[in-house]
């Protein structure tokens, strides 16, 4: 049996063939151009996870007035206030609170503070517990606000100002502005997924504890976790171990204790579950 194909049909057939072929070639070329970076990375470079971090640039403009101990006391006070002011954890708010806005100068900071907070120098006149007295003052003024804060947006905004003031105090002596880095991005530019990921260390850190004999060991472990839509870790595995069993088990324990994490939004829940997040202990 032979089919006789005339010349016209043959040319149409060839044209279709070339057209389809051309489309394929174009798709491939466009793909290659568009994803060149990723393809190069995939084939020729060792796969590296993307580090998610916030960046700020700190310009030191003077010696710090507060001592390290006073700063630690203030930090504890801030942490306590933040816990009180956020009964239901909203990841976006937590992450955005982390953003420290640029401070034009110290006088701007003083203008924003109530009279009783203005004169930071007066702390120096206190012979004992200068930091503590500051915390007490701040606690009295803002404590009531924090308790009621979650009820309305307006009140919540007031509370966040209180926390920001405290944070600015922590950075006294330093001027903070937006920095530049190829690794980090500003919070405002961060994707929802990154915001969620960035909030995780703050939730895990309270449970991340080591015995003193492991303090000077310079250990490092990395664990990938997969979080379900309920904010629970359904699976984890070590990407790299520290070489010390106690260190590794403490890292896992800190993850377990800090669960459940905040509920992921619809947009990111699939990615959290399929892609996972690598937690670096400490980096």
């Amino acid at each position, binding site marked *: 049996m032979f089919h006789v194909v005339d010349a016209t049909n043959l040319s149409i057939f060839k044209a279709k063939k070339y057209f389809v072929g051309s489309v394929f070639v174009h798709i491939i070329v466009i793909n290659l151009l568009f994803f060149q970076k990723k393809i190069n990375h995939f084939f020729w470079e060792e796969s590296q996870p993307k580090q998610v971090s916030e960046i700020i640039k700190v310009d030191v403009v003077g010696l710090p007035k507060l001592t*390290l101990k006073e700063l630690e006391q203030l930090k504890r006070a801030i942490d306590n206030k933040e816990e009180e002011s956020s009964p239901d954890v909203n990841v976006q708010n937590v992450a955005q609170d982390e953003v420290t806005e640029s401070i034009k100068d110290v006088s701007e900071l003083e203008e924003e503070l109530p009279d009783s907070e203005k004169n930071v120098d007066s702390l120096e006149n206190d012979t004992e517990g200068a930091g503590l007295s500051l915390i007490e003052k701040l606690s009295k003024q803002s404590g009531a606000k924090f308790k009621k804060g979650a009820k309305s947006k307006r009140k919540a905004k007031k509370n966040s100002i209180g926390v920001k003031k405290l944070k600015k105090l922590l950075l006294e002596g330093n001027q903070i502005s937006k920095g530049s880095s190829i690794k980090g991005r500003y919070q405002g530019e961060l994707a929802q997924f990154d915001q969620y990921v960035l909030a995780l260390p703050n939730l895990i850190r309270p449970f991340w504890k080591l015995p*003193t004999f492991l303090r000077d060991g310079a250990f490092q472990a990395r664990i990938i976790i997969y979080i379900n839509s309920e904010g629970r870790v359904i699976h984890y595995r070590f990407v790299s171990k520290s070489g010390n069993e106690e260190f590794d088990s403490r890292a896992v324990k800190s993850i377990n204790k800090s669960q459940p994490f905040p509920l992921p939004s619809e947009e990111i829940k699939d990615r959290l579950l399929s892609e996972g*997040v690598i937690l670096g202990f400490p980096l």
Partner: protein
Amino acid sequence: MKIFTFYLITFLLQDKLFAQTSIVAVGDATIEKTKIAFSTSENCNCVEVSNIVRTDLEMYKHKLEVFDNELSEIQKMDYEYILSRNKETQAFELLSRRGEQSSSLTEIDNSTKEARVLGHEVADLIYQNLFQKQSIFKSKIYFISDMGINNKGVKGKQLFAVDWDGTNIKQITNHNGYVFSPTISEDRQYAVYSVISNDSERKNVNLYMMDLKTGEYKVISNFKGINSGAVFVPGGDEIILTLTHSGNAELYKMNIKTKVLFPLTRHFASDVDPSVSPNGETVAFLSTRAGKPMIYTLSTDKTEFNVKRVSFVGEYNASPRFSPNGEEIIFSSWLDNRFDLFRLSSKGMNLVRLTKDHGSNEGASYSPDGEFVIFSSQRILSETQDVKNLYIMTRDGDILKKVSSDLGKAESPSWVK
């Protein structure tokens, strides 16, 4: 068409296929304190030693929690270690609750030593068992004080040594003048210091070296002008010092045996007060290159090599000193009409303030294990009276104790193993 569909699906899944996992840093862990309980009170003949051991260990309260309970109570509680004394052998025993460690501190000969020395030895052994490194309990502090009187009956400032606990004070030098800027070799065998002589004919500030075992001393540098600020380079026969014989204060490396000089700085500004990193490769020093005295670092290989500025603030910075691991520099800086102590990383990051409100604080030096800092603090009593004492604090600025009230006007402390 099938191939086209395949490509389309591939195209849509590209992002999934090449997705990049995100990594976040959890950060440094909180360090839990190690709990240790004493049950030595059952042995009546070791109370004094036990008290010393306990007082010693409490110095490390930032990493150790010390309790004193009867053995029966201790058994019920959640301690990691128990220190007890064997009734038969009289040896101290350190028992671990977790079972993997049990140390009998038997090598201590408690029959011939005074309780203070024995207590420090026991405490040091316990510390080594817990943390696998030496403690400060057998260390010494060298310092300058005005309480010395030389063999001519003339008062001046001399070099002294004292045990870290403030006892066993000894006068080391006996010069007719003012000793300053002392440094002690790692093996505690040599001291190098400068002297401003009372003798009107000898105005030059010379550098001396003393053998601390024999008490013999000699001039090792007497160039015209000032020979001072010497520090030992770890593991060698070299020192780094400041000389002004060229007409400007510059840093030099000197071989103690050959006296050969090698210039480290050559700059129109004054370069003084060197401190050498533990590996001997980097020197931190003060320089007026920026106008005000600021801290710089340089490499010791060549002249003016790898010079980096690490401090950028402060009216007057002074006495930079490396930590034993070389990662930090502690220094004093003039702020609000007094000196206070500050710390930054050797790369110039993480500037923090350590002291405040308690007089003028300067001349800081790290303990050999890097956990503590000793410094001198001047308190003004009246227009004509002041006191100057040595204090010990943790490296984070928690002031723990005054070394002793019997050290005169003590300054320039140097803490050695």
